[in-house]
């Protein structure tokens, strides 16, 4: 049977990128425990609107845990206390009457706040733009089964490819590092033969872009892995490091000079 609870929210409010921002306390009354976390915020927002106050802005879209839009730090943990779960799939039954909940946006220099809990994650898009693709024009593809891929490689590539680009890894990292995000795409494509031809160039460009965006470095805290809604493993970060070290130490200049000689 449904439980009803009253909560106190401490929510980060910031009108726009230039605003200083501050925490504001709100009462969330008569919250049904079957609500999702975002539905709880919907209820608070309707209440605010009735009082003539501006609703709390937060990114959200599919509410099924796959689009990667939503994301907020709930009581110190990106996406909240449930493992492998995005904020939209977090349900209020994990909270109890009287709880005080602090809600903050992702905090990172590379993710400037747009408004309230909404941040600008375009830095992640630019990392993909730097090389996170296979350059195949529409129509240029060979017959799909002409290139068998060992199932284990394919499965491992898949594990990396499940990244939804929500940015929780950055938000959780003590260094605000985007290593897990970047590594996931690099690994996804490096594990597949299709990604082979551009492999060395890709890792160099993507890591360079990751650094240029102002993300921190990886200190192997594993916080990213712990909050990742898709359980992406930090062993992909090791893979990215290996890829880059190989790319920049043996390829491609070395290969060039060898072929000349």
């Amino acid at each position, binding site marked *: 049977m449904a439980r009803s609870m009253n909560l106190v929210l401490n929510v980060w409010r910031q009108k726009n990128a230039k605003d200083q921002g501050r925490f504001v306390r709100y009462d969330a009354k008569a919250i049904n425990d079957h609500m999702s976390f975002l539905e709880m915020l919907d209820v608070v927002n309707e209440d605010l609107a009735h009082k003539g106050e501006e609703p709390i802005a937060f*990114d959200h879209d599919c*509410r099924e845990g*796959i689009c990667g839009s939503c994301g907020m730090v709930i009581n110190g943990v990106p996406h909240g206390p*449930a493992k492998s779960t995005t904020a939209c799939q977090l349900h209020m039954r994990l909270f109890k009457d009287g709880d005080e909940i602090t809600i903050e946006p992702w905090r990172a220099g590379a993710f400037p706040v747009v408004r309230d809990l*909404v941040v600008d994650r375009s830095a992640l898009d630019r990392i*993909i733009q730097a090389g996170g693709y296979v350059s195949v024009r*529409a129509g240029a593809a060979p017959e799909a089964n002409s290139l068998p891929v060992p199932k284990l490689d394919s499965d491992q590539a898949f594990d990396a490819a499940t990244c*939804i680009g929500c940015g929780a890894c950055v938000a959780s990292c003590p260094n605000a590092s985007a290593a897990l995000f970047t590594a996931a795409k690099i690994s996804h494509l490096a594990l597949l033969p299709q990604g082979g031809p551009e492999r060395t160039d890709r890792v160099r460009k993507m890591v360079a872009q990751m650094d240029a965006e102002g993300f921190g470095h990886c200190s192997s805290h594993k916080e990213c892995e712990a909050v990742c809604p898709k359980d992406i493993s930090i062993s992909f970060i090791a893979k990215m490091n290996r890829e880059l070290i190989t790319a920049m130490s043996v390829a491609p200049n070395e290969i060039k000079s060898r072929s000349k000689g």
Partner: protein
Amino acid sequence: MQLDSRAPTGPIEQRWNEARFKSKLVNPANRRKYKVIVVGSGLAGGAAAATFGELGYNVSCFCYQDSPRRAHSIAAQGGINAAKNYQNDGDSVYRLFYDTVKGGDFRARESNVYRLAELSVNIIDQCVAQGVPFAREYSGLLGNRSFGGAQVARTFYARGQTGQQLLLGAYQSLSKQIEQRTVKMHPRTEMLDLIVVDGVARGIVTRDLVTGKVSAHTADVVVLCSGGYGNVFYLSTNAKGCNTTATWRSHRRGAYFANPCFTQIHPTCIPQSGDYQSKLTLMSESLRNDGRVWVPKNLADLQRDPKNIPEADRDYYLERQYPSFGNLVPRDIASRRAKEMCDLGKGVGPEVAGVRRGVYLDFGDAVKRLGRDAVAERYDNLFQMYERITGENPYEVPMRMYPAIHYTMGGLWVDYNLMSTITGLFVGGEANFSDHGANRLGASALMQGLADGYFVLPVTVSNYLAGVKPGGVDESHPDVRRTVGEVEARIQRLMSIRGKRTPESFHRELGTLMWDYCGMARTEAGLKFALAKIPELKAEFYGNLSIVGSGEEYNIMLEKAGRTADFFELAELTCRDALDREESAGGHFREEHQTEEGEAQRNDDAFSYVAAWEFTGESLAPKLNKEPLSFEYVHPSQRSYK
């Protein structure tokens, strides 16, 4: 206006080839002079924008999300069909074509459907080359499964995330073009109107969702891939932001809206748990392979713990009514029977607005028969998802399910070239009406989006551009400025109502009305009631709407209000179309038109046409234009599942 489908004639196998050969081409050196606008970045829009970029056009792509990677195509779970016949089980392009026409209940254009089936094979090649990690067998070759009752295994899949993986493939190609500066991406930007100059689409008016700035973007061609309108029902499996504004505003500028009443219901979604519910979550239909659907026989048992209800007091109504198909009857039948049970007061689960909307989907027998491990192997991820949302463990307590709106087959009318009735306005993906007829087969939405984006639009838009001089209209053109002015006035109007009700509450009320009277089963009286009620609600909207804040900033209430305003108008048209179509076909079920067994009954003599509605003016009745459908290859037949 006489609707010309421009569908080629001749042998169906050669039509697309012919059409491609006859298409005019743009000299590669001249392409960058042509500006192409793509609205939407999902499978259709993302693929189209990337491909136009690859061809060398000057592309601008718009999406309301913060990144093109988040378009709602991402949420598709099941898979994508393709006539590869890798399983050697008798599949072919022709069979996929045949199944799709039949599945669409003979309300789709044969030429389009054949092209779709033909291109399906290229899509798989393309996606695999991009690095989409489709399921593979131990041989390293691609795996397939049979989906949605198909007799052949032609569905390619990527765990339960096929949509995501395909979209990321398109997004990556798009990202490359953004890097190469052939595509300029405009995220967090919403199209609010279409610019039409002398009857030709010449651009769009947008609002920057962060700053509130309204601006005009002119172009030589506009391509809408802005998705479906399922959110007119408020509760649906669509993403919260999905809306009809781009298509509806284009409709008001002269693009005909086709078959809006063809909406698809998915039978297995997690039921609503309360009146705060913001969306519904779909659970894979595969659950019906092993789960048994039932409701309590006695009304007294409704609130009883289902475990304590003895076998004799359970009504396995699908098995009772359809002994041969049982729980595996098609989507629409399963959906309607569930609704019937709940309308009879036999629904289970929480009461929302006075009705319990849910039926049990019980795995008790499956666990007994196969063992818990075997059930877990098949469904554990789904069970976990269900438990996360409902807090109930399906191994212990029967799941509860209820149908929900899932996809809309209707959309802007397009010809074979995917051009609307406005010259220079092309429409792809779910936003158009073209390929699915009255009902869409499982795993065919992704196929259509990508076929349009990668392969059809690049040819047909190029053909159009070849006949156009680039850069005819700029932002100072009076028609452009007038359209911008109209958009600003509309925003101003919404902002200045200063009433008491939030946009959300209006949207919710409209959705409930639509679901009750224009949902799974429709009647003349119900539709007429809705048609009387919607204008009343709309009038209240324009008299009592409240939006906090201003239009010159990030304003989620204003966004919502604009989308809701357009949903009102679309809702009316949908009801009118449903009322007008005096037959049952695919996703459209009129209670007056059913067989003795309660099956949908088509009326091919009177309704074998596409209903293309023309906007005639504010508060004027829309005009119905008909595109007759003829079937040269697949001849209409009535289905039976008894």
